[in-house]
């Protein structure tokens, strides 16, 4: 392909198809890990679409643009990068097909290529406009009623009571997330660990986003990677781990409480600042006071004063952001204080937040508000390193959380990094899911959906449920997507939206002036189908079967809203989300394989749940990407000043290497 010239639909499609081929290796239940070695020689494992795409170091300007879009999307939602590429490829293919069909008819353009491009651009703009205008409502009416809702309030992990269905839902949601990001092996374990972590960090009387944002912001300080252990050794520990070792012998006793101070400056006073000059033996009149010893002994005595002051406040742990002098270490040891040096800024700020104290620069100004009270402060050996483990005292008035840190274990560093990234993205995904979409409507609609959900727990009181629905449907239609909506994974979202889009197109085509809208929604509907198609790629029969079942379910019960699932269900995992059809009748349930068909590969797709709002944002991002991709018509390679220098050298060898250049 020439580096400069007009871009045609084919080029765009070609570039995206290459990306799709790479992504497919790690997509869906049969997908696996991608191992990559960085230029530093470091190995990294990933199933995350964004990381795989960025690791490719693509040269193609269009492909780089796509990767940029994927990166932007996934950094805001933490999820959906692989589906992004699949949807993008499928949309481009359909637009291309539609455009080339139409351009054969029209003759007003100079060439068929240009006509094609113009039609495609037009279509993409209309798709985006449609998406921005009507997609949320379509999802709210066509998809959301078949899912469930998870609210932050009910989310706890105190596992004694078995009726904690909401927690189970979050676990399922996270489970499917970890399945797509880290593989099958530890998805249950990781989702449980994440749930536990988040439930410990739950602030009372605060929005979910506050807790999640806090955990997300302090994630580097909150986790400790430990290599060489099996993944199952990962665990939560109470309090905070400071990733430094004691510079002095640790505390000998385990008495409570322990008083600690965060220092940002040097404990030993600095006598001479840069630029200062100390003159010794002034004017030949040698006095005792002007000897160097005076200064160093003054320094030592003032240091002793500071240590004595700290001792009088009962302080026995010093957390310092900087390295202290040998004299400080020795004096602190003699005063039976323990000192931790070079603690990172992140960790100190988390510590201050959790202990409710402020760091101090100059220790001579110390007041009691700088002194934190800890439950304990001990050394902890994690893998090869010894760290400092602190725990905070529970105080009723301050915060109601139980601060805890995460220890991530895995045999190799690459795996640890993968788990840490997945965990961070999972938190981002939850954050996005619970983020109020349209602030005005959230409070009322959340209530209704919750009560609706509790009603749907009992499949037998069907009448009650349907009457309730008729009242509850109003706010849903009026507002849009609520926070916390989830739907069974495995392509159900796409199948339902496909159906809803077709219905919408059908109703639009009745009125002649909106005819153009119908073709757009038809196109989007068909593009959506590619996702479940790829999920079921190992057995196309099951794709058709599940599609047929969704359609037959919707046509039989057009007015019921009920959580449904596509998956073969084991008895042990009954949850309201997975409840069968409204009548509890086996024939009407959406199981895509029969009870006896236990060997069916479809049963591997017990993938759990996915967030509706993330899916909605994914769709919008894809539509935006398509529109911007098709707006580009030319790529102009430019040269910086540095390159012109060497052009002369290049031109001499131009004749012989013509073929290379054209590649």
């Amino acid at each position, binding site marked *: 392909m020439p*580096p*400069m*010239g007009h871009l045609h639909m084919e080029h765009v499609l070609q570039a995206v198809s290459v990306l799709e081929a*790479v992504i497919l290796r*790690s997509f869906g239940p049969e997908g*696996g890990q*991608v*191992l*990559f*070695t960085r230029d530093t020689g470091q*190995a990294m*494992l990933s199933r995350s679409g964004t990381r795989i795409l960025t690791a*490719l*170091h693509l*040269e193609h300007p269009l492909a780089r643009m796509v990767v940029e879009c994927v990166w932007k999307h996934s950094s805001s939602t933490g999820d959906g990068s692989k589906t992004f590429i699949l949807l993008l490829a499928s949309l481009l293919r359909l637009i291309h097909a539609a455009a080339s069909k139409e351009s054969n008819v029209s003759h007003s353009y100079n060439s068929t290529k240009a006509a094609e491009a113009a039609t495609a651009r037009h279509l993409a703009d209309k798709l985006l406009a449609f998406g921005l205008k009507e997609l949320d409502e379509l999802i709210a009416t066509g998809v959301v009623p078949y899912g469930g809702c998870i609210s932050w309030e009910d989310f706890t992990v105190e596992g004694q009571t078995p009726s904690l269905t909401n927690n189970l839902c979050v676990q399922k949601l996270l489970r499917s997330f970890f399945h797509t990001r880290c*593989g*099958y*092996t530890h998805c249950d374990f990781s989702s449980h660990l994440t749930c536990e972590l988040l439930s410990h960090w739950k602030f009372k009387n605060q929005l979910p986003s506050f807790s999640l944002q806090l955990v997300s912001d302090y994630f580097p300080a909150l986790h400790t990677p430990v*290599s060489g*252990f099996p993944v199952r050794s990962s665990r939560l520990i109470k309090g905070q781990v400071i990733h430094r070792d004691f510079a002095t*012998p640790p505390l000998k*006793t385990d008495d409570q409480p322990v008083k600690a101070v965060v220092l940002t400056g040097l404990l030993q006073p*600095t*006598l*001479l*600042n840069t*630029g*200062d*000059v*100390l*003159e*010794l*033996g*002034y004017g*030949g009149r040698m006095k005792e006071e002007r000897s*160097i*010893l005076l200064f*160093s002994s003054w*320094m030592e005595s003032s240091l002793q004063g500071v240590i004595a002051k700290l001792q009088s406040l009962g302080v026995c742990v010093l957390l310092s952001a900087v390295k202290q002098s040998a*004299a400080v*270490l*020795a004096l602190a040891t*003699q005063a039976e204080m323990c000192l931790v040096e070079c603690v990172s800024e992140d960790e100190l700020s988390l510590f201050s937040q959790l202990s409710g104290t402020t760091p101090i620069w100059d220790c001579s100004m110390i007041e009691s508000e700088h002194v934190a009270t800890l439950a304990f402060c001990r050394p902890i050996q994690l893998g*090869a390193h010894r760290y400092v483990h602190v725990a905070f005292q529970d105080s009723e008035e301050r915060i109601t959380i139980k601060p805890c840190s995460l220890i991530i274990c*895995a*045999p*190799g560093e690459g795996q640890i990094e993968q788990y840490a990234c997945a965990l961070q993205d999972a938190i981002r995904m939850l954050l996005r899911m619970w983020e109020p979409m349209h602030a005005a409507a959230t409070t009322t609609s959340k209530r209704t959906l919750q009560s609706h959900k509790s009603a749907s727990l009992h499949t037998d009181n069907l009448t009650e449920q349907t009457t309730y629905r008729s009242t509850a449907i109003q706010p849903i239609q009026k507002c849009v997507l609520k926070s916390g909506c989830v739907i069974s994974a495995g392509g159900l979202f796409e199948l339902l939206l496909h159906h809803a889009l077709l219905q919408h197109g059908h109703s639009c085509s009745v009125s002649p002036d909106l005819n153009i809208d119908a073709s757009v929604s038809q196109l989007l509907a068909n593009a959506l189908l590619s996702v479940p198609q790829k999920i079921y790629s190992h057995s196309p029969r099951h794709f058709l079967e599940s599609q047929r079942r969704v359609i037959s379910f919707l046509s039989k019960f057009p007015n019921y809203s009920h959580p449904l699932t596509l998956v073969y269900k*084991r008895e042990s995992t009954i949850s309201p989300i997975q409840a069968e059809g409204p009548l509890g009748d086996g024939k009407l349930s959406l199981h895509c394989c029969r009870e006896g068909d*236990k060997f069916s590969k479809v*049963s591997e797709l017990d993938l759990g749940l996915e967030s509706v709002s993330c899916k909605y944002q994914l769709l919008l991002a894809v539509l935006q990407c398509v529109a911007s991709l098709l707006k580009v018509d030319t790529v102009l390679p430019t*040269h*910086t000043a*540095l*390159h012109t220098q*060497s052009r002369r050298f*290049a031109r001499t*060898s131009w004749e012989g290497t*013509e073929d*290379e*250049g054209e590649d």
Partner: protein
Amino acid sequence: MPYVGIVYLNNVKSASVMSRVSKKSPSVCTDMPLDNTDICSKLQLLKQILTSCFGPTGRLKQVHNNIGGHVVTTSASSVLLSSVSSSQSFINLIKTSILNHVSRFSDCGLFAAILCLSLIEQIKKSALRESVAIRVNNYLLALCTSYLQREDCGCRVKLDFCSTQNLITLARSVISSKPACVLTEPETLHISKLAVQAFLLTVPCSSPGIVSFGRIVTVPVEGHSVLSSEVLPGLLVEMPDGLSEEDNLLNPLSVVLFSASLAGDISELGDGVIEAHSDVDTDSQILGQLLELGRQVINDEVKLFVCQKVIHPVLQQYLRSHGVIVVERLGIALMEPLTQLTGAQPVATLHTTIPPKTYGKVRDLCIKHFGSKTMLHLLPLGESAICTMILCHRNQTMLNELKVVCQTAEHVLRLTLREPFALVGGGCTETHLAAYVRHKSKSEVPETASVLMCSQTEYLLGVELFCCALESAAGALEHDGGSSLIDLTHAHRWMLPADAIKETMEDSLGFCGCGLVQSSPSKKWTYLNTKYSDFCPSPVFRDTRVQPHVLDSFTAKLSALQVAIETANLALDVKYIIQDMN
């Protein structure tokens, strides 16, 4: 369009000329690494190398690089794996997993590597889908770990700390599994006993509050017989100048320990400039201060003066003339053991009087000779968890391996404090586990298969592959052409020498690999890699007189098992490799 071609070419050329502004070259991708012949042959080679090193009769490897560096003779996984590097990141993925395990647990690295590689190989050879194999492996691993942690586990031995018998066996198994140490039978036993003795010395018996372990400081001595190795309580430091063996000192001795330099340099005052007039003798002022310090120390009747850094010669001379033993340049490594030994607190202030509580005590001093080395031995006053291990061996290479092995033994022994168990060695744990998994997985096949979302045939195939991998790890202990057998009651491993006659099999078998079971006419055996009808392996009736000859670390082996299976699962899950070529 030709001009466009020129522009593009220029771009390429300039990129190669100016590497700083060059574009990133595209990455190299490998699809389905396990179907790649290059990767497969490398995996096989790695397995061969590691298998041949396994166990007491394992073959040694000489590692030397192409630029004429130091030649290392070893069979230890930590040394071998860290010196072998591959261009294939797939191989490195497995390698780092195993190395990380070894750096945490010191032991069972070869076992983990062999198990992992043979599991990958078995699954690759079979037609089992990777995703199914991963699920089955995961399930069977959980089965194994829960069995090993059960009270009635047939291959686990509870360690009795009242007797050192089992501890010595445990240490001996570690030491004898490394033939590169070149130890005779009595030497092995001697070193094992020393390792246990040193370990026991580092466990504090009666200390209130938080218990902290002591430390073993190793002093290698080349050119002496292994049997002259010994363990001493206390520390050995370099022999200070001007000390004769005739000196008589009153016991116990008072000790002062400095962490700051006493060389007479100016202390840190800040970043500013110090201007001294010519008539000011700062050096002598500081020296005066140092001598003042010395005077106080002498007044306080300190007999041993130790400094981490350098001491001014005048101060040294002054102290010596007053009968104080001076040790300088101790180094940071010995500072912590010395504070633990003496109870002294390091001093870094030069102007204030030294608080009396910072002084420590040493019970006695004596001079020790080891070959060409003469060292000062500091004995603790009362109980102290610090001890010194003097390791002697004939040459440098063997001594290095012996040092690694002793550290492993120390680590393995320390792990028993957390979990006071050991696993029977000699391949018996592996065969026993395989028999258990075979037996256990035969029940409830349809249910398990549906939980694992695969067919029953797939599940049973997965079980067979897993057990074969375990058994091949046990079989890897044999290197002399003999064959491995398994008995059909306890499922322990037996060795049949290559020259044994079929009729006298019972006699040539003797004891099983771990030494718990003796051969008897009522027993039945089968070859390790043949099919046998599954049975529940019964635990050995424990006769207290019969002690196992070979024991493996429970904690290390359990983790090795988990790491091996997890790494194999990970390797099976890798579908695509991207290699950055920049």
